[in-house]
């Protein structure tokens, strides 16, 4: 199947910007609207766009499904690891005060750490679901 030039080029232009916007939403999350979930969905959308344009075979070669499958538990491990880190420092579970000398910095670091966990899990889950649908019947 020949790919439409217009679609292909515009997708190639858009995809990096979508990814950067995902990171903007991710790191802006503790000051304004946004956060790990939204960022994860936007990032996953870029990969889904890539799959739609270039086909599921090429997409799964460039972004293997196993990566996304393992991203789901890894994100939750980051989240729960942050919580357990507080416990090991003698604070309550998920008490971010434990993460720095100054409680306020600790809260900041803690929020970013768990939001990264959410980000990773959401990308993994969204793309895994999409891959599961598009590769149905092809095996």
């Amino acid at each position: 199947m020949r790919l439409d030039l217009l679609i292909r080029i515009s997708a190639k232009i858009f995809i990096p910007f979508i990814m950067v916007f995902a990171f903007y939403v991710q790191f802006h999350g503790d000051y304004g609207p946004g956060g790990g979930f939204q960022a994860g969905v936007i990032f996953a959308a870029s990969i889904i766009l890539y799959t739609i344009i270039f086909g599921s075979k090429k997409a799964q070669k460039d972004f293997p499904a196993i990566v996304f499958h393992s991203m789901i538990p890894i994100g939750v491990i980051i989240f729960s690891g942050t919580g357990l880190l507080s416990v090991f420092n003698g604070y309550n579970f998920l008490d971010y005060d434990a993460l720095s000398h100054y409680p306020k910095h600790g809260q900041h670091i803690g929020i970013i750490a768990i939001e990264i966990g959410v980000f990773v899990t959401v990308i993994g889950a969204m793309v895994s679901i999409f891959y599961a649908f598009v590769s149905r019947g092809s095996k």
Partner: protein
Amino acid sequence: MTEHLPAIQVMIPIVGSLLIMLIRNNTLNWLIGVLSCLSVVFCSITLYSKVAISGAISYAMGGWEPPVGIEYRIDELNALFIVMISLASCIIILYAKNSLNNEIRANKISVFYSMYLLCLAGLIGILSTGDAFNAFVFLEISSLATYIMISIGQDKRALVAAYQYLIMGTIGATLYVIGVGLIFVITGSLNLVDIASRINDIELMRPLYASLAFITVGIALKIALFPLHAWLPNAYAYSPSVGTAFLASTATKVAIYLLLKYLYLVFGYNIIYSNPLFMIVIIALSLAAMFGASIIAIFQSNIKKLFAYSSVAQIGYITLGLGIANYNGLIGSTVHIINHSIIKAAIFLAIGCVVYKTKETSIKKLAGLGRTMPLIATCLTISSISLIGVPGTVGFISKWYLVLGAIEQGWWLVVISLAISSLLALIYVGRVIELIWFHEPEKNIIVIKEKLPKEMVIITIILTLATIYFGIDIRLTADLAKVAVENVLLAGDIL
């Protein structure tokens, strides 16, 4: 570290299940599962002894003090159930390895272990949390894990069963959240202790009743209280044997605890008795479960379905104790949660052994099991007998307290119903026992020729002996339940 145990005992199985998803090596994953379950058992027993000495423990998640933050609250009652759940899951996962290898596809085994631990984490979370919405989150975690565990079953109908449970479970969870939302609007709090202290000052009764109704019906769907039990028989029948044993001995029990908590600790006597119709409905449904489900069980042709319907009937006994609502009735309920969990684990693990050898769950194929597999047949017989409530078995202890409670209330009709429904249990159990011992075995019934794995036999025997042991020595079941009921449920309207 011991002050962090409430959080850690939920985190251990979660981390275990994540590691299993990453590693995907079946033997290693089984080991991770066993280790996580063992450490949860250790944590829960330590926590129980701590609670028994110093009273209820409150743990503030993230350092946010209750009622603002999420509180984990461990008292004698839920600490007891956490010990029960963790022990049950530990015993069942020790049994699981060969049974799963035999029953489900090799590439699904890791997923099963992972979901098993995730479900365990969710159940312990429901038990230990003191926050209404957090309980919903854990309810969803455990339910989602359960749907996957059911759908892994070999039979094609497992998918339909899982889907059926998915729909029913989601409706139940939705109703529960609507109820919690109403409570939040009325009281302005999600912390259960805080709600309990504010709820008696509420003057607007209608939304309060509405939330009571929503929460009760929502949880009743999870409990599989008759007539909302439609999902349960299929879910039990088509999931892998290990999954069935796990679900039967833990999942519904935890939902019953949640109902117990809402009725007696959150809403309190004043509200649930301000309208006498409410308790009458609960008692009527319990009696309907005891009779209806037992009668349906008599006509089942699938052994797992038979005992699944018997589970629905036994759940009726437990909710009947809630309805009786005096000292002995509540002890009866609490003890029956524990005892029924032991019995059903024993029965379904024994059935798991049969399935391992014969690959059949049809009741007719059980004929002559006493000759082909005498040890397992004996275990199945003894644990089924304790389901009826024969003296000297665990079933008798719980029914004894229920009967005492009903007599104290002067409800002779309920006492008679308890006796009659035990007779119904005798019929469906008798049908199984008659087939096992007094019929000729069919030819070529044993598909797998090699011997049963040792650990499967040993664990089935241990659980069967437990159904007798706890029927004689009640220090670990009824006495602890008494302490829990005295200190928690009857400690007044407020926690």
